């Protein structure tokens, strides 16, 4: 798979986690692509922390409205039934457990479900935006990311960068497979048969608990 195929592979697998009626917040970058793979037979309510529920596809020239953007500042549309609200209600929704699933990218995730994705000291300081509230408040936190960064593992025994939150990640989806994070560690529950279990283990610093993982279907 090339880079774009990898991103679509990850995004399409994440989209299978949603249930009818779920409120879902998709982070910037790869997680945004998940919107392209939403199942058509159920209703997913996409929330955006700048103040809307019912995030629709990118506008065309015809329905473009500069007053409707997502949390990345990109123009979006509002679906029927959607609505706007202010930042305090937006974070009551987020912090209060009213978001069923949040999907974010990450620089590092570790065995305890801690993640780091908002700062590389001395190098990159974008700020945490709404990410800390999202991972703390959402019922389920899914990290959607490439398994490694230039060959270096991102799934670690313990994060080395400043944390975004402690013990909050429930699931990791990468091009190599799907991992559940439980009290006893990271379980590889599905894997991409383009990689061997040994490949995946060696690309992962954290210990992987492996009990008969399912082979994923790869349709590119």
């Amino acid at each position, binding site marked *: 798979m090339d880079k774009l195929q990898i991103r679509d592979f990850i995004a399409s697998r994440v989209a299978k986690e949603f249930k009818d009626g779920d409120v879902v917040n998709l982070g910037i970058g790869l997680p945004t692509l998940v919107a392209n793979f939403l199942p058509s037979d159920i209703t997913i309510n996409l929330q*955006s*922390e*700048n*103040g*809307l529920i019912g995030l629709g596809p990118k506008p065309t020239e015809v329905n473009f*409205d*500069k*007053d*409707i*953007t997502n*949390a*990345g*500042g990109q123009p979006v549309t*509002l679906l029927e039934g959607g609505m*706007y*609200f*202010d*930042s*305090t209600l*937006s*974070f009551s929704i*987020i*912090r209060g457990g009213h978001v069923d699933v949040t999907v974010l990218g990450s620089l590092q995730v570790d065995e305890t479900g*801690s993640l780091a994705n908002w700062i590389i000291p*001395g190098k*990159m*300081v*974008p*700020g*945490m*935006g*709404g*990410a*800390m*509230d999202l991972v*703390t*408040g959402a019922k389920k936190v899914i990290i959607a990311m490439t398994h490694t960064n230039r060959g270096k593992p991102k799934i670690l025994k313990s994060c080395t960068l*400043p*944390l*975004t*939150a*402690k*013990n909050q990640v429930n699931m990791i989806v990468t091009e190599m497979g799907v991992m559940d994070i439980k009290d006893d560690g990271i379980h590889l529950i599905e894997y991409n048969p383009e990689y061997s279990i040994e490949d995946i283990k060696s690309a992962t610093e954290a210990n992987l608990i492996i009990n008969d993982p399912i082979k994923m279907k790869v349709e590119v």
Partner: protein
Amino acid sequence: MKKQIKLEELKNHVHDGMSIMVGGFMVVGTPEFLIDELVKIGVKDLTIICNDAGLPGSGVAKLITNGQVKKLIASHIGLNPEAGKLMSEGLMECILIPQGTLAERIRAGGAGLGGFLTPTGIGTIVEDGKQIINTGGKDYILELPLRADLAILEGTTVDLFGNVMYTKTTRNFNPVMATATDLVIVGAREIVKSIDPDNVMTPHIFVDYVIMEEL
């Protein structure tokens, strides 16, 4: 309209060293023409409280580029590379706050609360120097209220009494900031006779001055 002033009068209400909350989220809901006027006035050593650092050439980024900002309190500065540069070089103090905590601290400032307990930031450097309080078996950070001297907001529709409505995602931080500063100035896209009393988002009692945007 009683509260309406001219754009040129903005200078009478700002001064060096003041703290200003600026509405908007990635410049959506930021009153661009009032920012332009602040650049023109050249008021400096400002503390700016805003969700973000704007975008290059838009929003509070203009004040940052023009060297008017001494301190920035925001949740995200990633889309304005210059802010990160000035921060790294020590030319602008920058305090990063989780977005929900930022909104809630401003709300506490406007609502007369002494603070609130949030789970956001527990186990991270956000808790450094703050009191941790355990209640119901869970740790929370005690976060304190945030207020400022002035709020500069974008009201989509303002009525003759000063009631404000914000359209679509321009609402964001605008209504909560209206409650948390000594002075509130709203940049209006349009002024109408009246707004349906059920749909007022910022009651007129919070609004000190309204400046109409000249298009």
